[in-house]
């Protein structure tokens, strides 16, 4: 029912949907985040603390499962080097009722931004390379969910 993965391989969205949907659910909400090619970005590299990222995602998934009645939950995060258009993160939450599926999906994606031990490095076509700075907005969105 709960599927949590941190993987350097490409995320196969269609296969993950099929796996998640096996059995059928009344309502499924999903979120897909992809690498944006803004400003000539050519590579996004995601570094992670393996033990902490794995534990963080698992804790997040169980927090969602405790808070909402979910029939299935999929949380997959890619790490390593990615190109524009690649899927970075896939969140899938299903429930008998739409409000639960929608809330769980939004909670997971908001908290992912701050709770997971990941650092982004951007490489641009003109040779610039730099680590992304923390964003204020992410913190504010994550803090809406007082658990």
């Amino acid at each position, binding site marked *: 029912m709960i599927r949590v993965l941190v993987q350097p391989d490409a995320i196969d969205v269609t296969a993950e949907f099929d796996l998640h949907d096996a059995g059928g659910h009344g309502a499924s909400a999903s979120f897909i*985040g992809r690498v944006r090619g803004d400003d000539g970005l050519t590579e996004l590299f995601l*570094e992670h*603390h393996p*033990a*902490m990222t794995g*534990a963080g995602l698992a804790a997040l998934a169980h927090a969602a499962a405790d808070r909402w009645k979910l029939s299935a939950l999929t949380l997959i*995060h890619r790490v390593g080097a990615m190109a524009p258009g690649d899927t*970075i*993160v896939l969140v899938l939450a299903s429930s008998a009722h739409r409000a639960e599926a929608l809330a769980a999906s939004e909670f997971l*994606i908001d908290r*992912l*931004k*701050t*709770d*997971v*031990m*990941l*650092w*982004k*490095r951007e490489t641009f076509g003109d040779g610039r390379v730099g*680590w*992304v*700075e*923390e*964003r204020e907005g*992410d913190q504010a969105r994550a803090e809406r969910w007082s658990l």
Partner: protein
Amino acid sequence: MLEIAYFSWVRERMGVAGEAVEVPADVADVAALLAWLGARDERGALAFAEPHRIRAAIDGAMMGPDAPLSGAREVALFPPVTGG
């Protein structure tokens, strides 16, 4: 011996992903560790010039600057995470 793991630009500035170090007895908490690493050599001075920009985890749990090192197996040092 204490395992130290570096991530993101801290790792890049230190030139290694981690190292096992023998810390002096008076380096008792995270803040003291950052100061000691910053004073130890040039790469440390580069990585830890602004300690307020550094976050720490001891054995997988996020910790503040006054967290004691006693009993720690691994200290991870890194900038604030940039998400998901």
